């Protein structure tokens, strides 16, 4: 897998910015629920989009440890390296 945490993080940010409600100045340190005002359902639905783009499934229990955009990127890269 050629994906790195930085490249996945950039892709997540780009996807987040497709949503007009998301603040324009987000970065990898942003907390998805607190800073972007996503509720748990919105997070799960957003992750589904990323899963499709990167052809990976993120089990819900893994999501429990994800707070920031970079956490999510790291979690996805770990899953890809495992698979």
């Amino acid at each position: 897998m050629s994906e790195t945490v930085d490249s996945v993080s950039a892709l997540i940010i780009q996807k987040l910015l497709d949503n007009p409600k998301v603040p324009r100045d987000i970065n990898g340190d942003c907390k998805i629920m607190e800073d972007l005002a996503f509720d748990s359902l919105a997070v799960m639905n957003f992750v589904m989009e990323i899963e499709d783009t990167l052809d990976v499934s993120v089990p819900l229990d893994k999501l429990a440890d994800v707070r920031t955009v970079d956490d999510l990127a790291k979690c996805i890269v770990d899953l890809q390296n495992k698979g």
Partner: protein
Amino acid sequence: MSSIFAKFSGTASALGGLIESGGRNPFGVVIEKVVSSTVGVIENRETLLFGTNNYLGLSQSQNAVKAAQDAAAKYGVGTTGSRIANGTQSLHRQLEVQIASHFNRRDAMVFSTGYQANLGIISALAGKEDYLLLDADSHASIYDGSRLSTAQVIRFRHNDPDDLHKRLKRLEGTPGAKLVVVEGIYSMTGNIAPVAEFAAVKRETDSYLLVDEAHSFGVIGENGLGVAEAAGVEKDVDFIAGTFSKSLGTVGGYCVSDHPEMDLIRVNCRPYMFTASLPPEVIAATMTALDEMKAHPELRTQLMDNAKRLHGGLHRIGLNASKQVSPVVAVTLETLGQAITMWNRLLEEGVYVNLSLPPATPDNRPLLRCSVMATHTPAQIDKALEVFASVARECSVLS
């Protein structure tokens, strides 16, 4: 000292807002008197009940009431124990045999609620190495079951067998069993699962399939067995879970299966082992309600006729009602304000429906969720439609 209630501050302000804008707590409605299956007294007014899930009206079955009275007189009012201790009486086994034979399955497990049936069966089946694949719009009991399990949990897009297929393909070669969970009729929207397509995916990928027929049992299928029967794929469904609290009008849950391992599940299932079993009067009423359901297939025809009448009527008025015809008919609104005002005005005009709010609803929009009964008269449905139309105009939902 930090307050243990601080986490509720968001809920507190949301609930405060709901009560302030509508004048009452939508989650605190009290039915003061039950007049019939379709009419109750709320706030001293006779109110048409369009939000009770009492699909066949059997909560008011006089035969079931009599059976409950007799059972209480004979056995007492409670079992004071769990199914694996002192809480199994001959009535529990009789009910299990009756349910299994009704579904033409090898065995049945009866739980104290439908919620616990899902919690129990999902958490018992899905172990650490296994994968649970859940429809994104699954009921809370399914999500909670997945949390009580130790399995890896993956969501797929609602009612989308291709998306499920894609996600199962990704897991190809990984160890562990795969259990797919779908509902027959979705409780919020009335959407019906394409089970034949899900069954095909299950066969191709060698996974297991559990269908929660909570809202479809007694409602669809030639014998009222639910969507699996209606789609002709019962043999592909490994486990059917359901509840007695909707079409049968009592309380309790069940899981039926042909797998011979059900007795092993009984001793590996916390929500079955560590809670008191159903009381005798509930079991007796449930068995009688099941007999009535079988003896009166015309109830299902009336139910579907009524569902068509309400569904068609709401569409004709111009409201954004459910796509598919089923006894769950939801009207989707764009804003919370509209939903709250309309729900309150409907109640004041004598029509009770459920107010369903995000995140319990799909795609973040509020719903006015109606459920139809076989026992509604055409005149009651027409009256509800009339009130819906006038209230929707008053609230500027319709012009």
